[in-house]
Each structure stands twice: as C-alpha cells, then as structure tokens.
C-alpha cells in the first residue's frame, strides 16, 4: 500500500537521506532501524509531508504523495507520532482525541452555532470513538485530566490513541518505546500487534529497542548514514554482517 522509491533529502550541502526505498503491504509491521543520525526521522518527515523530498517517489495507495502538505497527507490516512511526545498539554485528554477527529466532524460554523442534528450526531460519534479508544489504552478514567499531567507512559499511549481515532490506514510510530520501562514496553508491544491484527492498520516503526523490533516486525529496513544498508525479515537482519558491524554489534 505504501511504496517509497529512491527517496533522497538534501539540506544544503548535507545529503541526509540518499536512495532509501521501502515498501509496506496491508497489515504489515515494517521497522526502520539504524544508528542515531542515520536519517530515520527524516524519512518519516518526508513521508508525512513535513519535508518536501529532494528526490524520489512516495506512493500511497497508487497515488504519488511526495510534496503534498502535511495536513492533507494525514487526511489520506497516513498518521504519525513524534519522537518527543507532542500532545496538546493544556487541553484535556478527551479534547485531544476530539481535535484529532476534526475531519470526521461537521466543521460548518453555522451548523455548530445552531446545533443541527447532523452536527450533534457527528459530535456524539466522535465522543463515542474517543471513549472507545480511551478504554482501549486504559485512560478512560483520566478523560478529563489535562493531557500534560499524565505520566509519561500514559502520554505515549494517548498519542497512539489520538492517531487511531483518525481511523488511519497506515500508522507511523517514531520511537514509541523511548523512555518506557520494560513492563510498559511489553504493553506497547501487544498494543501495536493488536492494531495490526484487530484494526487492519499497517505500521511503520522507528525504534531502538531491539527486542521490540525483532519481536513484532514483519520486515526490517536498516539505514546507515542516510543510505539503505539492508532489508529483510528479522531473522535475516539479525545475521547480516553489515548490520552487525554498523549497528547491532557483536553479541
């Protein structure tokens, strides 16, 4: 469903990403790994429309999407999270989820002012969807707390819930396990697998936690210094000499 062909991104004299390709099929978890500064997040930023790539193609569901503005990309069904949690901290937890459903709501101002049936109906559905996902990530009791007051692990889960209420087809997670303790990482592991199994979402994952990556990925792409190093199943990657030298290290 997603195909990235020969992507490159140049910042002035620096070629941050050079010839990276990857493809994601329906209901598949694909990981991108590599050392710090390898260009993983830059690839994400290109895919999600924050950067306009200098070269290459990004094809989502048969349509070229490179260079399309970020908010339109997410409306197509490609939604991302961030390496550092980016919540609307002064808004309540449930409001965070309502904002995310903006495109599902009736945003006509007059409809809202007069409270037309269509407006109320969509607003109610949005609340129900928010309640469903809060329950799913175990935050229902905290629905009216300020998002900024949640514990770190909860904020991470809320960020994923916030992506899921937009009903995406492809979810891009940028280091979702960063800063989580082993128990929380395990929960996250199960959550991501369930997103794939139960909600038919494809996932692209950037992560440094190798146990998580090896556990849940269907395929792995390794990037080093902006260039593709290897790609394959977790088993192949684990035994690839180049990858071991550049990133994994000798056991």
């Amino acid at each position, binding site marked *: 469903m997603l195909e990235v062909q020969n992507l490159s991104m140049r910042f002035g004299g620096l070629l941050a990403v050079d010839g990276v390709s990857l493809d994601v099929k329906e209901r598949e978890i694909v990981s991108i790994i590599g050392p710090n500064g390898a260009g993983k997040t830059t690839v994400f930023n290109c895919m*999600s429309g*924050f950067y306009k790539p200098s070269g290459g193609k990004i094809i989502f569901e048969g349509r070229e999407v490179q260079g399309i*503005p*970020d*908010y*339109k990309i*997410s*409306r197509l069904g490609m*939604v*991302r999270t*961030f390496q550092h949690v*980016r*919540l*609307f*901290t*002064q*808004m*309540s937890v*449930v*409001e965070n989820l*309502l*904002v*995310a459903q*903006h*495109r599902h*709501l*009736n*945003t006509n*101002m007059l409809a*809202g*002012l007069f409270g037309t049936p269509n407006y109320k109906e969509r607003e109610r559905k949005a*609340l*129900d969807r*928010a*309640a*469903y996902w*809060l*329950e799913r990530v175990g935050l*229902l009791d905290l*629905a*009216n707390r*300020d998002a900024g007051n949640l514990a770190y692990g909860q904020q991470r889960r809320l960020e994923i819930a*916030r*992506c899921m209420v*937009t009903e995406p087809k492809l979810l891009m997670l940028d280091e979702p396990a960063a800063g989580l303790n082993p128990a929380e990482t395990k929960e996250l592991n199960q959550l991501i697998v369930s997103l794939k199994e139960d909600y038919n979402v494809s996932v692209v994952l950037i992560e440094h936690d190798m146990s998580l990556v090896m556990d849940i990925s269907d395929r792995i792409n390794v990037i080093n210094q902006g260039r593709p190093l290897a790609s394959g199943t977790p088993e192949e990657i684990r035994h690839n000499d180049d990858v071991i030298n550049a990133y994994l290290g000798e056991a």
Partner: protein
Amino acid sequence: MAANNYRHALFCAIVTLIISFPILGFNLEAKGINITLTGATTSTIIAVILAAVAVFVFQAFRDSFMVMLGKLPNLNPLAGKEPMEQSKRVKLESWVLTGIVVFALFWPFLVSRGSVDLATLVLIYIMLALGLNVVVGLAGLLDLGYVAFYAVGAYTFALLSQYIGISFWMALPIGALLAGLTGMILGFPVLRLRGDYLAIVTLGFGEIIRILLNNWTTLTGGPNGIGGIPEPTLFGMEFGRRIKEEGNTSFHETFGIAYSGEHKVIFLYLIALVLAVITALIIRRFMRMPVGRAWEALREDEIAARSLGLSRTAVKLSAFTIGAFFAGFAGTVFASKQGFISPESFVFLESAIILAIVVLGGMGSQLGVILAAIAVTILPELAREFSEYRMLIFGAAMVLMMVWRPQGLLPMRRIHITLNKQG
C-alpha cells in the same frame, strides 16, 4: 547571602530615587509665557528619601517579611477548602450570570447618566476583549494591532452614514463583516509567523490603518475626524429632541412622555448590553465546537495539529476573522455612542489596554476577561482624583497582578466532558 541582600536592597533604593526624583522633585511652572523649573519643597524631597529608605528596608529583610505575611491567618478565607463539585459549580455559575445580566438590564434606570455612559464604554471593551480573547487566548496568536479592526468597524459606520446616509442597524452587520474581512486579509501574510514576529507585524498593521485614516483626508477627514454620526433608532423612532431624518418619528412623542436626554443614553447602553451578551454566547459556543478546539490545538502544538489533519491556514484565518468581526461590532457601537470619531481613538495604547484586559482576566477565560474589562475601564475613572498618577497606578496594578497571579484573575477551566463507556 546577607551581603548580597544588602547590595540588592541598595540597588533597589537607588532605582527608586532615580525614578521618583525627576518626577516629583522638579516642577515646571508657567509664569506668564515662560516656563520655569523650580525645585520641590523640602517635604517632597524628604518624602522621596523616606520612600527610598522604605524600599531599602523592605528589600533587605524581604524574606522575613514574606514569612510574616504567610503566617497571617485567614488572609484568604477560601484557602484550604475543597473545590466545589463540577456540576454544582456550573449550575451556580449560570445562575449568577443570568442574575447579573437581568440586573444589568434594570440597573441604568436607577443611576446617573454618567454612570450609564461609562457602563456602555465598559460593554464596548468587553466585546473587544472577548474578540481578542479568541485570537490571543485561544489561538495563541499575539496580536498587537487589534485596534485596527475596531477602527474599521467605527469608520465603516461613520463613512457610510456620511456618504450614503446608512442607519445604525444597517451599519452594524456591514461594519462587523468588513472588519472580519480585513482580519482575513491581514491574516494571510502572517500565516507563517508566530510569537514575537507576529506581534511586530500586527503592530505594524495597526499603525498602517491608523496612519491611513489620518492621512487620507479627502475621504476620512484626516485628524479632524468625522462627526454627526447618527444614533441608533428603535423601529424608526429617534431619540433626539427633534427628528433628523424624514419618515422617522421621535421616541418621546410616540410614547407621550417628556423628552429626556437620558433615553438615548440608556437605549445605547441596552444595545451594547445585548450585543455584548450575544458576543459572549457565540464565542462560548465556538469554544465548544470543532473550530474552538482547533484554535487551542494550534496554540498548544502547531506541528502535532498539522500532523492530525488540521489546516494551519484555515484555523489561523478563522481565528483572525472572528476576532476582527467582534471588534467591528464594538467599533460600530462606539461610533454611534460618540457621534464623532477620529484616528486619535484608535492609537496603539488602545490595543495595549485590550491586550492587558485579556492577560489580566486570564487567557481564554471568558468570565475572567469580562471582570478584567470592568476593572480596567472603571478603575481609572474612580482614580480621577489622582489624575496625574492614573497610568502609574494602572501600571503598578498590572505589575502586582503579574507577580502574584500570572495566570490571570480567573484562569480558564477545561470543560468537563462525560463519556459513555463503549463495548
């Protein structure tokens, strides 16, 4: 530690001297056509020195003073009490608000004409502050040129009445819509800007509008302003002693009561009250709608908002447009109340005062902004006796507020949303 304290105290005392001595220590006196500089009386100089000593003592022993202050019991009678239950509080608040509005409807019949006039001004500021609250408090866009939209509303009415002879009721929507349109047009170039940069550009826009009004003498009359702006009519009834326009009747003749200048003032007050209530209700509704949440999301984190499918252009422009729309509303009422407007009414200080109202009230909080609008407009009037020091007192009050209550009088509270458990 102690030495540091004394050095700091000495510094503060010297600053006090530097600031207060030139203001209080020298007098300019007009003798005939010459102005002479005379020194102050000994008592003033002693007072200044005493003040400096007081500052020194307070700063030197500040910590112990603060501890003593903290020990004072019952300074805040509400301290330590449990916050009220959510549903109870909402109910109480709506009752109190309804009560205030009903009281405000009857109040002008009990008090003097001057008070009603002042109250009308307060209501105009409430409208302005509620509008700016959308831009600054909710959308987080620091707008220092807000007064421009106020001017657009006022001048729209003044010019249309002068050249076409349009009435207040026609001008009200036109003025508001034109101001809204101006807001949208000015919004386009600043879409990419945030924070300080945005503040500077909007400041520039505010000045452009004022200077344009000042210099386009053929159309606006320049610094002479525009006079003879008609007062609002009630279903074609005028409030003047004599009828100005063909086909209108006069209010006092229709109802067979003696003419009184107060009728007009009270009528204007009631119009302003109704418009202010409408403004508050509409914006309150916006805050609970997708557009209101989008404004806040943009304020909180623009990148996250965009990644979730919010268009920065649409959200920012809607905030600018709606804020400007209500400024246009207020401007039309202002023009009608004054009967005369000139660019002098729309200087930067006005923008600053409206912004101060929003910040003092608590960004995003409607009730807080309304309270602050009342306080900021009325306090300088009450302090008329100290006319020379009015702005000084105003400034000091702001500094104290920001030190002790930076979140504003009544900080914004999240709306409680009840969810039904799913599945």
